[in-house]
């Protein structure tokens, strides 16, 4: 359902939709429709959980009018990053936005360069030198600690600026988006099959989530019905991906405090699960299985038996890991009350995934929307109350238990499924649609617009890390700086997901 409004009406519409807190802002993105004479547009996507659909509000700018609108960030805090990104990409100015610094394009880009405008060619060489002021606190005895963008571990680039009073963190400003790849620009003009290979590589940890959301968007745009067996396999792959990620994160969190036996056990379990992925998909990242219209590979009875066997082992290992955490009093001491995100904050920022559910915000696209075969499964999503590192750890353990049960049910469904068709026939034409899937880090949202020839006119991809990154800078306030690695690992946010 798409409602078109004028820029002047956006503020009131957003206020009305956000008033009762039941419509979290899922995404906000721009689109250049000047070639068809419409002008620039901004899509605001609000979740309508009661009716299990998205309310899409499309703000249409007059082609001859001013490219500015009243910022909705003061009333919908979750819009802060989206509005900054739209300004970077399209040059649409949010009046009254509290932070008008660039978000994606740092100081090495020129002023007035808006890459997602259609007039900018794909191979445009942008070089510039503009200001980018990092936020710091000033005062007697305060000092700054710059960390990154190059880190000691093998991780992606991000710059963190801590404003310190001794060991206590007063303020943290994170400068991310260092390796912006222009993926949304790169896929323009490609067919969904061509684009799929790029979308699959947005992030190495969430290939299934990204591909599935993308395929759902394309399928909605073309009204394609996916065969039932393909839906079961997609759901199964999604849960496998969650197991790999959660087990890996459980092994990673103790690394923040040097708790070595747990690091080793977590690493071992993750490798077992990853090797299972290789057996299922032919590669360790689960790439190349999901395609628009269905899936490309079947899960054979031998594979079903192998999945059962490995999952039983991993499930037992997770219980060992849980015991290890519970028995280590000094570990409990580190994780309890550290890095708290309050429920109100989680709702205001429209947080997703583990981060939201650990703070008592039961935000899970598996139960909020209909996709895959989640509706047929018997499960109850886990929610924690305290919002600290311990809650995020426990949330992952509880979610793993849910996923293990889901996988068992899915394998039975797969065995009972008589219809063996894996992929619907697909032709591409004009249309637009959205897709959502619950990755290990939270909901992953894609919006695709196809032109008359069935080529991509605009693709917007918002991974789960995007709404959760701003919460990290809030969670650290009041804690001491040696606890930062632990808090950071408890969110386990992805840089590549936002550097798209």
């Amino acid at each position, binding site marked *: 359902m798409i409602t078109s409004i004028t820029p002047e009406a956006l503020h009131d519409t957003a206020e009305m939709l956000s008033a009762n807190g039941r419509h979290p802002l899922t995404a906000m993105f721009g689109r250049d429709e000047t070639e068809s004479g419409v002008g620039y547009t901004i899509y605001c996507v609000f979740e309508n959980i009661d009716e299990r659909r998205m309310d899409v509000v499309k703000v249409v700018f007059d082609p001859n009018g001013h490219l500015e609108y009243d910022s909705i960030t003061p009333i919908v805090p979750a819009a802060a990053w989206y509005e900054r990104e739209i300004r970077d990409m399209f040059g649409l100015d949010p009046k009254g936005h509290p932070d008008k610094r660039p978000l994606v394009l740092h100081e090495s880009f020129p002023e007035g360069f808006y890459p997602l405008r259609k007039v900018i060619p794909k191979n445009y060489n942008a070089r510039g030198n503009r200001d980018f002021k990092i936020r710091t606190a000033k005062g007697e005895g305060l000092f700054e600690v710059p960390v990154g963008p190059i880190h*000691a*571990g093998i991780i992606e680039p991000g710059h963190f600026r801590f404003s310190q009073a001794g060991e206590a963190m007063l303020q943290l400003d994170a400068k991310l988006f260092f390796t912006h790849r222009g993926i949304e620009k790169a896929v323009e003009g490609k067919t969904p099959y061509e684009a799929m290979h790029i979308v699959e590589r947005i992030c190495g940890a969430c290939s299934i989530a990204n591909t599935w959301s993308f395929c759902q968007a394309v399928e909605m745009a073309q009204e394609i019905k996916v065969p039932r067996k393909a839906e079961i396999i997609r759901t199964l792959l999604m849960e496998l991906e969650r197991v790999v990620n959660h087990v890996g994160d459980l092994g990673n969190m103790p690394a923040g*405090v*040097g708790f070595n*036996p747990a690091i080793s056990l977590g690493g071992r379990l993750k490798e077992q699960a990853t090797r299972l992925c290789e057996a299922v998909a032919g590669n360790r990242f689960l790439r190349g299985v999901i395609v628009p219209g269905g899936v490309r590979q079947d899960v054979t009875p031998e594979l079903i038996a192998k999945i059962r066997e490995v999952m039983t082992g991993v499930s037992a290992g997770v219980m060992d890991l849980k015991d290890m955490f519970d028995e280590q009093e*000094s*570990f409990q001491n*580190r994780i309890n009350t550290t890095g708290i995100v309050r429920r109100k904050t989680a709702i205001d920022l429209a947080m997703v995934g583990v981060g939201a559910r650990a703070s008592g915000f039961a935000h899970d696209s598996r139960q909020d929307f209909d996709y895959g075969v989640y509706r047929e499964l018997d499960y109850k999503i886990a929610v924690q109350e305290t919002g600290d590192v311990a809650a995020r750890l426990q949330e992952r353990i509880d979610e793993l238990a849910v996923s293990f049960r889901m996988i068992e049910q899915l394998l039975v469904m797969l065995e009972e499924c008589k219809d063996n068709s894996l992929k619907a026939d697909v032709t591409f034409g004009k249309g637009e649609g959205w897709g959502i899937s619950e990755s290990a880090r939270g909901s992953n949202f894609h919006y695709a617009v196809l032109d008359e020839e069935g080529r991509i006119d605009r693709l917007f991809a918002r991974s789960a890390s995007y709404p959760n990154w701003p919460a990290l800078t809030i969670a650290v306030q009041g804690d*001491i700086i040696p606890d*930062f690695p632990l808090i950071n690992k408890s969110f386990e946010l992805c840089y590549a997901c936002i550097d798209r």
Partner: protein
Amino acid sequence: MIELLAENLGISLLQAVIMLLFAPLIAGIINKVKAQLNKRQGASIFQEYFDILKWWRKDMILTPYTSIIFVLAPIIYFVTSFVAAAMVPGFIEGRFSFGDAFVFVYVLALGRFFMTLSSMDAATSFGGMGGAREIYISVLVEPAVMLAIMINSIRYHSTTLAGMVINYDTAYVSVSAVLACVAFFMVILAENSRLPVDNPDTHLELTMIHEGMTLEHSGRLLSLIHLGSFLKILVFLTLFGALYLPVNIPLVLKILFGAIAVGVVEVLNNKMRLFKVRVYMVAAIVMLLVAIIAE
């Protein structure tokens, strides 16, 4: 007299050289124990020799913004560890050593003092944080080491390490001896930047203490710092074996036992909250005070 001193000094230096040769091995053994207990293969116990050699051969990078302190500190740190090794009465028959226990403690403090100075020299925030934390911990460690030594000096009426060691009787197991043994082991962990006080294996700069101070050093200077650290832990383990472990086995076995114990404790524990370190150190100090009273 001077001849005697010269001869004994020679013996002490010989002992320090022997300890220096074996120090990387002890570090390698600790690492191997940790790896095995984590169900990993682990590097060879001789790996630290290769590492020292590797750093020694590498280029050294000095920023133009540092002073002479930056270059001097690793040398002083290494030399103080070496002198401390010469002072510990240990392997060589006759068990002679020069200097008394107080000199021993403050020779090591001198090395630490220069390391913290150099941590601030390059003016990076990690170095400054590491230095500040090192001082915070050493303020607590120093009285603990002094108390631990005082127990033996009260018992054996001597303030020289040699005097204590000659009189040390492993058969004498008392409440005070056991308390001192446990407390001194806790002190070893804190003084040598091991878990649960500091994590020697981490790459997370924000949590570092000792490693934070050495981040800007490279090449031969880094090699000296590591060699100094390895030697320091061996010195402490030797002292632990010679004065605190009430078991009647040869000193070499006691040192090995101590090294394995460090590895085991490091696997069993994770790093504690920074501000909890004082609770840990106060516990050690209280145990030592009780030990003195029991004495």
